[in-house]
């Protein structure tokens, strides 16, 4: 419905959207937030504990020093260990035929406990497909469960792409800070000890809750678009890869995520549903009035990665928008004309083999480590 509203707004050209600051006073909340799916098949489980913060609070309030464990119905416990701030990890092998619950004791003596949950089967991802259309590349995830039993899915994905600096450089500033108006700056040739700055990788993780359900279909089959890369994007300028991770959820867990998605990703137009309370299956048993945000789920994640080469995308037309210009090699000229740039390569040599003129460009056009990393991921071909 919000699509319609959007259209109505566009129709009635006068409509508009403005920033709005909440008149709501800062309410002390500090409720426990539990995120993460337990891998019961021995893979690493990461449970992330944090606290809700005030609206204007930019700090992430991680929950440290808590005791986190799983408990089966027979009373056996399976502890997780704090592994980084607010992160609780472990490798657990759980039995699919019994139920487990999550127990958390926080430093301030609050006790949380989840309902009992059984490990959930999660089918493999069949395929990651992509399609080129006039807007760019649309990516789809395909999965199915022959037993028609899984039905409720969540995906996370992480995009990684290789990209190259617009210009390659054989020169560098000496000192590396470059011309800034005071120190004497010259150009020097780069050597093997200098870091790689023309080939880099960058990653981006999904930040939306991505859900899909086949509950209304006769077969448990999913073919769902999960992201789109616009034509000309740097992401597919060389080589692009996406890793999709899939989780299986119970109906209640799926509804919890759906509520959270509705509440936080599309709320407010009159046609949208009103925000609803986020009650999961984890409760504070030491103080029942205290809400806890999170849903305990045991499901081994399944993953699939694909690569897309730029060569597969004719007329991709990636353009970094970089311009090079020439500078005369003397300290005054460098100070005057080359501030805020990086040197690239000589264009004129003196008869004595010295650099007379060289080209410079904006730093991001020369040094890809400014936006990415020059460490090649181990899975990269």
């Amino acid at each position, binding site marked *: *419905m919000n*699509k*319609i509203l959007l*259209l*109505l707004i*566009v*129709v*009635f050209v*006068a*409509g*508009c*959207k*403005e*920033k709005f600051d*909440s*008149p*709501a006073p800062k*309410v002390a*909340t500090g*409720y426990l*937030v539990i*995120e993460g799916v337990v891998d019961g098949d021995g893979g690493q489980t990461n449970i992330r504990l*944090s*606290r*809700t*913060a*005030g*609206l204007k609070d930019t700090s992430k309030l991680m929950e440290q020093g808590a005791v986190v464990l799983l408990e089966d119905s027979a009373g056996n416990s399976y502890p997780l260990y704090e592994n980084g701030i607010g992160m609780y990890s472990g490798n657990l092998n759980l039995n699919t035929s019994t139920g487990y619950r999550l127990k958390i004791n926080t430093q301030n003596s609050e006790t949380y406990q989840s309902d009992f949950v059984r490990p959930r089967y999660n089918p493999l991802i069949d395929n990651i497909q992509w399609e080129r259309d006039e807007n760019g590349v649309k990516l789809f995830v395909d999965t199915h469960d022959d037993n028609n039993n899984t039905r409720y899915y969540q995906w996370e994905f992480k995009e990684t792409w290789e990209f190259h600096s617009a210009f390659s450089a054989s020169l560098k500033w000496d000192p590396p800070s470059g011309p800034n108006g005071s120190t004497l700056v010259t150009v020097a040739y780069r050597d093997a000890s200098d870091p790689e700055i023309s080939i880099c990788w960058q990653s981006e*993780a*999904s*930040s*939306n*809750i991505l859900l899909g359900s086949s509950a*209304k*279909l*006769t*077969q448990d*089959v999913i*073919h769902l678009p999960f992201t789109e890369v616009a034509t000309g994007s740097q992401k597919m300028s060389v080589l692009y890869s996406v890793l999709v991770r899939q989780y299986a959820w119970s109906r209640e867990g799926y*509804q919890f*995520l*759906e*509520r*959270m998605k509705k*509440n*936080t*990703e*599309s*709320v*407010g*137009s*009159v*046609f*949208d549903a*009103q*925000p*609803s*309370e*986020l*009650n999961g299956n984890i409760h504070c048993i030491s103080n029942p009035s205290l809400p806890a945000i999170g849903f305990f789920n045991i499901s081994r994640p399944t993953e699939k990665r694909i690569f897309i080469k730029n060569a597969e995308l004719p007329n991709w037309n990636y353009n970094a928008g970089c311009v090079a210009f020439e500078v005369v090699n003397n300290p005054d000229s460098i100070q005057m004309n080359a501030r805020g740039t990086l040197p690239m390569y000589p264009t004129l040599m003196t008869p004595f083999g010295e650099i007379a003129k060289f080209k410079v460009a904006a730093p991001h056009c020369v040094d890809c480590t400014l936006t990415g990393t020059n460490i090649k991921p181990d899975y990269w071909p």
Partner: protein
Amino acid sequence: MKKKGSIILTLLFVFFSCVQTLAQKKTYPDVTVNLDSASLEQFVLAIETQTPLHFYYDTTQADSITITLHVQQQPLLKVLDQAFVNTGLRYTITEEGYAFILKDKNIETAFAPFNTDEKNGGRVDLNGLQKRDKDNIKTTLENKVYDIGDKLAPTAAPNAIIAGTITDAKTGEPVVGAYLQADQTGPSLVTDQYGYFSFSLPRGRHVINIQSLGMKDTRRQVHLYNDGKLNIDMQSTILTIKNVVISSQKLNNVRSVQMGLQKIDIKTIKQVPVIFGEADILRVVTTLPGVKTVGEASTGLNVRGGSTDQNLILFNDATIYNPSHFFGMFSAFNPEVVKDVELYKSSIPARYGGRLSSVLNINGREGNKKQLTGSAGIGLLTSRLNLEGPLIKDKTSFILGARSTYANWLLNLLPDQYKNSKAGFYDLNLSITHELDKKNTLYFTGYYSKDRFNLNSDTTYGYKNQNFSVKWKHVFNNKLNSVITGGTDEYTYNIGSNILPLSAYKMGFDIHQTYFKTHFNYYLDNRHTIDFGFNSIYYKLNPGYFNPDGKNSLVSPDQVEKEKALESAIYLNDKYNITNAFTLEGGIRFSFYQFLGPKTVNTYAEGLPVTTDNQTGSKFYDKGKIIKTYAAPEYRLSARYAFTPSFSLKAAFNTQRQYIHMLSNTASMAPTDIWKLSDVSIRPQQGGQLSFGLYKNSKANTIETSLEVYYKKISNYLDYKSGANLVLNHHLETDVIGTKGKAYGVEFLVKKLTGKINGWFSYTWSRVLLKQDDLAAGELINKGNFYPANYDKPHDVTLIGNYRVNHRFSLSLNATYSTGRPITLPVGVFYFAGSNRTLYADRNEFRIPDYFRADFSMNIDGNHKVHQVTHNSWTLGVYNLTGRKNPYSVYYVSENGAVNGYKLSIFGSAIPFINFNIRF
């Protein structure tokens, strides 16, 4: 015969006279009178025995007059002058020797040569003569004395009944709500929706004054011998005569027993400026006190703290489930075929039922019975055509209205991503009225409205209303008449998408109802008017289907079981005039609801919350089997006490029951909102309202002022549980909760509907609070405390103003202010699934900024010559004159990891509009 003729003539002159008592040239014998505290009758007898004169006078005027006079052989005129001094009586003596005595009236005799005045120097008064010619027809009818009833029939009872129909002389349409007053102090009443009236009066002579808005006041003189019939034609006022002072009682809110009734005629509706200049009935209704709406793109009404589904919207007896076009931008009623709108928000007549908050009765016009006429209008988004005329002259007439949009041109102006979008709506109205004979009239009404919206040609939304009714009005006799109505109402909604062949679907729901109503109106006597009748509605709901679209679609068909129910009611209502000042109206409506099979009903463990976990099984009921019955009486009581003719106090108490519920988890009324019948788990909504009001009219009833206070209680109002799924839910009862509610408020209204400057001003203070504190029913909302409903907007001020510069040009301004509606706002953030997300406060704890808007329009009419082929008019205006960016909603989104708040306004600047109308 001669005598009678004279009386008529005289009365004719009474009407136009402006002269003092006349001097007579003729001489009469001198008279002797010796009377002490004598009645006028005795005095007249004394004179008549001494002179050849015959006296005529009204005994009712003379009963309080006493005459003490002792004169010996004095001239007649001197004696009369002396006798009538300080009595207010005036006399006139004609050439023929007839003497007329009237109280406080100046008399002029028939013949101009004698119609002289001493003070005028004996000049002839020609004004009276000229005027007489002009209004000849009217005066003839008005001065004729109609003999009603059989003169020779035995006359046992002191009273007889006179009844009839009032019609517009030009179009033949009945005049609804005309005010009739018998004599100056006698009983009064108002014609019903068919222009019908019935009086019980003492036998003998009466003058019946008839008044109606937009009609020339008229009167009829009757001599009532026995029960009989009188049909009256009224002339409409084409031109407003300057300096007309309407001094007696127009139908007003002071005199009626009804509380919280607002009536607006289409003329008023049309002069209120609205968006795009489309005269919009529902938008004007929202300017009335006690009526609110959640936002601009919503025509859902919230009446006195009621939700949008608690209004019974009737268009010529047909129930309209979705009264809007274009997702709430426009109302679905064509103003050209509407006569007027009545909103009952407090004392709802017993004949209406089935909704808690209000009845919005939209009365269509009847077609012109005399000639074929029509009108057409062109606006920015829609154009209209309306045609009416006789099928059989004076017997059968039709009226046809059609409206269509051409909004696609607007969509073409949109950015490319919307270029394949299409939007459209239209509505059609057809009414046929056929008068079988004087006692039987048939009415056929058809209504069809359809909306279609196609977003980027992948998802198609559509909805439509379809209504048809037949009505038979029968007059048994002067005391008893009946209206029998039958019809069907249908509302369907569908949505479909076929962009992904694997999951291409069609989905929708519909409501179908068939109804039968009989209504009897019995005028027992002057004191009692009794209404009674029987209503029955058979509901057939298809709560939802979800089907594959195309061969490749993997969508598994899903169909929520159909629901059927029969809702019936019998009612009896008596309006009892205890005295002229004190009137009571009491009604009882007994409603009876049966939820019917075939249906599989889920059963739940007793005493536990209705959740899927507590489901114990299900039970199948056969076709026609009664699954659940609800029955209860509803009370409708109201009283009026008039301290003076222009000041009254009223009180009313009402209870209501509602068996059909709308389920919506969005803030406004949306076409996607589904309807649900009461069943085993979902109980009927109940409401009770107590209200008081003060009504004062001033300046010769041209200014109406009212103050009303109300307190209302609602129970079993459905709210949804957090994260409820309302669409295609086979166990909906597990996702909703019955809440309790209370609403209270004060409404103040000043209204002036005549004069150069007219309009109304209203102020409302009101609250509506809901509560869900029953743990057994499921989760609590806001820890079981009262929380404001979505449409709780405490302060609401509206001004609707119109200034008629001249007959062809008028200016309108409306301004409205209200408190911002409640909203659930975020109070915190947390990090989850790769993004910062918002934590919300209690439901509806905060409010969006206040709302203010002013609109302006100019109505320009072409010339007013009556005889021309077409009459044109233009409406120009500006919506949201101040360009204020009224927030329609406020929302928070997580964008690239950050939580940002936005406020959205639909009309963020001043919007000009233009509209052209043509009448032929």
